[in-house]
């Protein structure tokens, strides 16, 4: 296969693609500054950078969604103009977006056929399309049913549809924008083996990511972007995780912060025999028992959707409890509405920060007082004290290093990391006694992740009880004193930090109790 320049899909290989001195300016932001980037047939080239470093912008230029202000693109050493996705597709470039570009109410075949000339215009030729899909699926080992509706498919399957869509259009080069963000660990493994096979067959692949271990796992070469500029291009095998992090963030990064010994205090939060229902009406939690002490981080590990959300919501009062009790500082709060729990210094960093953690159209300042807005000094007799709010938010913006143009900026226009900093600042600045932190660093870049973890450890040191719900085992190992594993709404076991190994937790997460 190496000597032929035809890919298994029947399309022509792209031996070299080069982007030269690409500059892109958005109003007020220099998104890409004179960036060089190239990719060759048969290689996986990772594009690494923090959120906002300009990775996606660069690739959207390559795919014709944006136009570069300066620079040029060369395909097999010939300059090409790519003014629209259609141009990119016709040159053999395909892109798989972070948020899938699929129409949920249409079938796989319809999604693939969309926008293409049919062989029997003006009628669709879905039978023919389906045949070709099955053909491609066979060649590339992507199992898919062309007549299935997208909404019926799992996220991993939807991603396969995206790959097939690109291959169907003759993609020789594939841009993968943070393709693993939505996948489960098992799906990531499958996905990586597909990627490797495609590279072996002569495709060029660009892998956009900010996850260091994935970049090390999958790529042959890595280019690091920071603040719109390229730091450099390296052979992945010569780079370590620490190198990559340093290039990406611009300084050394501490992945496993030292955890100081903290004297365990009294029990602050106690969950006793708690049960509740899930959104679908099925059992969400079943007789869960937990206690979190002052100065302790109790980690809740588990595969997504095993009751983590229900647990957080039962404690914070956002979900009705069907049995059992919740105690805060020894007082029964089971029947209290959320606001009364808040007023007893219970803080909550919700999993879906944009949806549950803030009001996106409110300003940063307003979001920072959401939990305390009904109290002095922020309001008096129902009248907001704007001065107090402004000075409070100015303090928090400084103390928590929130990068925002002003405190009047709508929260939604901040970057993901800064949005989370707003939530964390609000929840930690009120001297909480107990914190429920659900997926506090999910989707954050390295810098913001490190920051949030440090703040949680500081809270622990000052005696706060923290319940850390995370699907990221690395995070649990980095922070938790004890680890409880949740499976199908039940606690499978609680292990101390010292005895916990990934294998042990993995078994519990899969629902296998010890000794079986």
């Amino acid at each position: 296969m190496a000597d032929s320049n035809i890919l298994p899909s029947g399309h022509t290989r792209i031996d070299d693609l080069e982007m030269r001195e690409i500059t892109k300016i958005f109003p007020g932001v220099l998104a890409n500054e004179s960036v060089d980037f190239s990719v060759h047939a048969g290689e996986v080239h990772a594009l690494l950078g923090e959120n906002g470093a300009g990775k996606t912008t660069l690739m959207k230029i390559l795919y014709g969604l944006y136009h570069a202000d300066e620079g040029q693109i060369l395909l097999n050493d010939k300059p090409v103009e790519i003014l629209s996705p259609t141009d990119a597709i016709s040159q053999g470039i395909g892109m798989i977006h972070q948020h899938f570009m699929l129409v949920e109410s249409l079938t796989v075949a319809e999604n693939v056929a969309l926008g293409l000339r049919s062989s029997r215009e003006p009628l669709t030729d879905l039978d023919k399309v389906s045949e070709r899909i099955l053909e491609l699926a066979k060649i590339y080992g992507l199992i898919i049913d062309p007549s299935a509706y997208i909404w019926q498919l799992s996220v991993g399957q939807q991603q396969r549809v995206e790959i097939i869509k690109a291959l169907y259009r003759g993609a020789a080069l594939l841009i993968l924008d943070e393709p693993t963000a939505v996948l489960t660990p098992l799906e990531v493994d499958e996905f990586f083996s597909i990627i490797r096979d495609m590279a072996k067959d002569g495709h060029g692949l660009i892998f956009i990511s900010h996850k260091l271990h994935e970049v090390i796992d999958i790529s042959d070469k890595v280019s690091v972007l920071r603040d719109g500029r390229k730091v450099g291009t390296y052979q992945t095998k010569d780079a370590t995780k620490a190198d990559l992090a340093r290039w990406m963030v611009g300084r050394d990064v501490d992945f496993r912060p030292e955890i100081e010994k903290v004297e365990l205090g009294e029990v602050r939060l106690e969950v006793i025999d708690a049960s509740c229902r899930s959104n679908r009406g099925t059992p969400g939690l079943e007789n869960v028992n937990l206690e979190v002490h002052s100065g302790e981080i109790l980690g809740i590990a588990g595969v997504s959707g095993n009751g983590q959300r229900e647990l957080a919501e039962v404690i914070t009062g956002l979900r009705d409890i069907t049995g059992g009790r919740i105690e805060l500082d020894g007082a029964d709060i089971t029947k209290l509405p959320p606001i009364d729990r808040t007023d007893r210094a219970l803080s909550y960093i919700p999993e879906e920060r944009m949806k549950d953690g803030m009001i996106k159209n409110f300003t940063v300042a307003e979001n920072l007082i959401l939990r305390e807005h009904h109290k002095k000094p922020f309001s008096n007799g129902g009248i907001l004290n704007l001065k107090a709010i402004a000075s409070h938010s100015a303090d928090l913006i400084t103390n928590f290093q929130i990068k925002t143009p002003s405190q009047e900026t709508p929260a939604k226009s901040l970057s993901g990391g800064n949005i989370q900093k707003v939530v964390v600042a609000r929840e930690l600045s009120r001297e909480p006694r107990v914190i429920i932190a659900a997926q506090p660093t999910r989707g954050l870049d390295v810098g913001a992740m490190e920051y949030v973890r440090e703040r949680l450890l500081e809270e622990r040191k000052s005696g706060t009880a923290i319940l850390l719900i995370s699907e990221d085992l690395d995070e649990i190992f980095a922070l938790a004193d004890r680890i409880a594993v949740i499976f199908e709404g039940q606690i499978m076991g609680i292990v101390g930090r010292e005895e916990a190994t990934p294998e042990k937790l993995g078994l519990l997460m899969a629902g296998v109790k010890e000794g079986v």
Partner: protein
Amino acid sequence: MISDLLSMTVLVGILASGIRLATPYLYAAIGETFGQRSGVLNLGVDGQMLMGAFTAFYVAIKTGNLWLGILSAMVAGALMGLAMAFVTVNLHAEQGISGIGFYLFGLGLSDLLFQKLLGTVETVKGFPKIQIPFLSDIPVVGEIFFRQNVLVYIAFALVPVAWFILNKTTLGLKIRAVGENPEAADSLGVSVARIRYFTIILGGTLSGVAGASMSIALVNVFQQNMTSGLGFIAVALVYFGAWRPWGVLAGALLFSLVNSLQLWIQVLGIPIPSDIAVMMPYILTILVLVATVSRVRAPSALTKPFERGD
């Protein structure tokens, strides 16, 4: 008196005029279906209909050519659609509000033109009934279905045509994709703007015909606000029909039959206050919408302007 309603002649009459009265609903609602499937809610249907009604009437009176009347109504509706498309697609205007704006515009302009150009209420000799050979001779059925004017036949033929376009052609695939996920369609090189321009203008054109079907086929006069909100019911019918042409047909028939029934109730002098009778179709609109809206899912991008991400 109620028993009068049950006589064969009256029942046939109710059904026949029900079929006839479905005509404007069908044109307008099928046109609106295309718009909504592509993600555009056009609340200006009634205004487009009034413009179509006036233009067709005026041209028919001045030229004596009914088909020229239809053609000019299509142009008038299409122009209204073009303006709506520009405002919603290019300027990203809020669709509900701009639609109401276009409704009021059509309402006012059609009346103004009527006052300036005609001034007095006249009648026109509208499209005659066409008796379809053989079929119209079938007892009852023939009288109900096959002794109608040409616009009625075209309106009913439009339903399978619309279904076919939406479900069996590449154009229909693009329309559905643009209404559900314009970003995805855009990423595959489908021009969201072009598709929406097409559906909005098509909707306007058909609304124009809907208006014309009233002024030169059903009632054969033009008067101020002669649609009296029929265009809004057409919009509701699209919801009722779950954005599907056959569903829209069912809705249109339901409403026109109720309408026909209330007309016959008045004609026969059945002692139900006429205000109540006239209200029936509207009350039915509300009831049916309440009952159906939660059952079906609208196109995901309905009412959402599309702009390439930044």
